[in-house]
């Protein structure tokens, strides 16, 4: 017979009250774990979405991140193939890097000749096979079946995709099979002949000459867009892109301006016949936890290309929305945890105070028999800890069970900044420490909550305690 056994028996003695306390603590533990699992799901969902699209690290020429969008031609990485080959062969990086892919961002005007409409665009020149490889990175614990490829292949030299909003504005709803696509009132597409007739002769003189459609291209039934960009030399360049599909980009502003095309096409647009450069390199790692050390290594390693200066940014720096969303959810999580902590404290203080008041005579007896004050304190604190422990075990089991049930339903949700539905998964085990840490926190709270009633019990005068019957 020891303190633990006596404390356990005391808990069972008033089992209804103990059960109520254990249940409340259990529900608190359950809520914290379930919401924690949900926050983990959001974290991994967003991280996976960002990393699949943009990789972990971005290597830019110095200054591009701040000023590049204003003048992309002035900030380019030369000899990108050589740099990529060097990084891919590096012993340190070899085991850590999944994909290194170059990209080129261009800004200009896009025009649909057939629809007689034009607008500004933000184009991203990519290598489709590498982007597809990046899309299959699995960061979260669950594979997302909704992942689809970029929509065009390396072999299709003039292919591209646009955002759904861009497709709508270019009146390509039908051609790109855009669902629920509204057509602007009174702006039905005009025939190319009518378009030609309406085009003022003086304006034609100012525009670069649109190349004649090759015979093969005339057979292509895909919608054609003509892109006009001010090249790095200042002269306007034009290329044509044939659209395979429209892909929702999630954010309206981006969706209405987005266009993805082959890297070679984008280079042709921006650099014409000059040296072909890229805006940056996307580095996707095998695991996110490698990010800090690889970033540090890259910063040092790239110094060997002395003719160029680079900066290496993480995806959280490139897309601050990730940190902002995580901060928001962490704040909500902390707030909920705090409320749960207060609930546990008030429940246990109430329960333990009742236990102390009901057992005044017993406390007096124990003291008369020779139990010191700290023995009484230990007995009641142990009872509080046991209630906390039992509640935590109950909460853990509930959270694991309900989490498994929710996961078995295969629900989906769309993460902030994402367009693809991702599996809604309660990742209770995402962090190995989440269960023991929650349990430890609740047990410490239980200990603190039971300390004050226990101290009251320990400080009772023996004769006063014995007087109660």
């Amino acid at each position, binding site marked *: 017979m*020891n*303190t633990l056994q*006596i404390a356990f028996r*005391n808990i069972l003695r008033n089992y209804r009250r103990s059960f109520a306390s254990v249940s409340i603590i259990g529900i608190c533990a359950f809520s914290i774990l379930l919401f924690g699992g949900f926050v983990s799901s959001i974290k991994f969902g967003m991280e996976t979405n960002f990393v699949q699209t943009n990789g972990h690290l971005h290597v830019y020429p110095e200054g591009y991140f701040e000023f590049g969008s204003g003048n992309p031609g002035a900030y380019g990485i030369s000899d990108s193939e050589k740099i990529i080959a060097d990084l891919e062969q590096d012993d340190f990086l070899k085991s850590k890097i999944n994909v290194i892919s170059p990209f080129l961002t261009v800004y200009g005007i896009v025009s649909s000749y057939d629809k007689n409409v034009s607008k500004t665009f933000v184009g991203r020149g990519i290598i489709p096979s590498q982007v597809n490889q990046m899309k299959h990175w699995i960061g979260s614990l669950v594979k997302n079946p909704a992942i689809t490829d970029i929509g065009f292949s390396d072999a299709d030299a003039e292919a591209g995709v646009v955002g759904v909003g861009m497709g709508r504005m270019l009146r390509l709803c039908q051609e790109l099979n855009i669902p629920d696509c509204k057509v602007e009132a009174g702006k039905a597409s005009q025939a190319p002949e009518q378009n030609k007739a309406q085009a003022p002769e003086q304006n034609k003189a100012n525009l670069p000459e649109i190349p004649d459609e090759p015979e093969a291209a005339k057979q292509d039934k895909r919608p054609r867009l003509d892109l006009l960009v001010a090249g790095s030399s200042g002269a306007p360049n034009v290329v044509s892109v044939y659209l395979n599909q429209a892909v929702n980009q999630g954010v309206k502003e981006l969706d209405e301006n987005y266009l993805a095309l082959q890297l070679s096409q984008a280079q042709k647009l921006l650099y014409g016949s000059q040296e072909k450069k890229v805006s940056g390199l996307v580095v996707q790692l095998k695991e996110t936890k490698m990010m800090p050390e690889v970033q540090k290594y890259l910063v040092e390693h790239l110094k060997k290309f002395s003719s160029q200066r680079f900066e290496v940014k993480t995806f959280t720096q490139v897309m601050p929305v990730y940190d902002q969303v995580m901060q928001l959810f962490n704040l909500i999580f902390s707030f909920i945890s705090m409320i749960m902590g207060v609930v546990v404290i008030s429940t246990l203080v109430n329960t333990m105070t009742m236990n102390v008041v009901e057992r005044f005579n*017993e406390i007096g007896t124990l003291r008369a028999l*020779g139990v*010191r*004050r700290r023995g009484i304190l230990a007995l009641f604190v142990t009872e509080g*800890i046991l209630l906390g422990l039992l509640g935590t075990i109950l909460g853990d089991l509930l959270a694991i069970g309900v989490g498994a049930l929710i996961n078995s339903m295969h629900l989906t949700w769309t993460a902030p900044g994402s367009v693809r539905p991702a599996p809604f998964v309660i990742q209770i085990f995402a962090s190995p420490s989440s269960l023991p840490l929650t349990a430890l926190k609740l047990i410490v709270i239980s200990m603190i909550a039971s300390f004050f009633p226990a101290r009251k019990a320990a400080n009772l005068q023996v004769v006063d305690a*014995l007087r109660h019957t």
Partner: protein
Amino acid sequence: MSSLLFAGSPKNTLHLGWRYRLDCLSMQNTASIKLINVSKTYWLGAVGVKALCDIQLEIPAMKFTSIIGPSGSGKTTLLNLMGCLDAPTSGEIEVIGKNMKDRSDNFITDFRSKNIGFIFQNFSLLPVLTALENVEFPLLLEKVSKSEIRTRALEMLEAVGLLEQKNQRPNELSGGQRQRVAIARALVKNPKIVFADEPTANLDSNTGTNIIALMKEMQQKFHTTFIFSSHDQKIMDCSDQIFHIRDGVLQRESS
């Protein structure tokens, strides 16, 4: 954590031959308890209620001593002071030669644990423990092996005639059986003094008679000093010494 309840208790040695106290002869003619000008005042707000006035008292060792008086006369207060459960407002108390004045709470607790046993009117058994565990409990506070604790507790339960009920909890026992367990618990550590505060008050007449007989038997068997507070004539009849108290003042002593 598991041993904290029992932590800090005196590490005194309980000898195996606990029944045969070697010091009993030397104690026979000495005072077990000595009260010198002891007064006790309870404060109800600003109003002081004097429960005991200048008590001068010596209780001999190994005797059956009763303190009697009407309700509110101060019997229990006197018993509590002698049992080191309370401190006097003024005066000094010596228990087995130790002056209790200005002693720390831990010292007094350990002293109680080592030297004093209690039998309460309402039995005060620990409800979550069986009869055997209740008797074992005081021994858990000492550095005694588990097997020895079990042996002694069983012997004591046998002595009070409750061996068959050893695994029953207090709520499964009758009033008389509970008081027997309380007696066994009070005596299991072989204390020098046992205080019994109206031990027969909650018992029927026959059971009360049996309990008194049992305590008398135990007192003779273990040479323990028994001090009672009681109205019970049966207790007075078998007492070696009786102190009468009224309104907090010791009236007289009779044998």
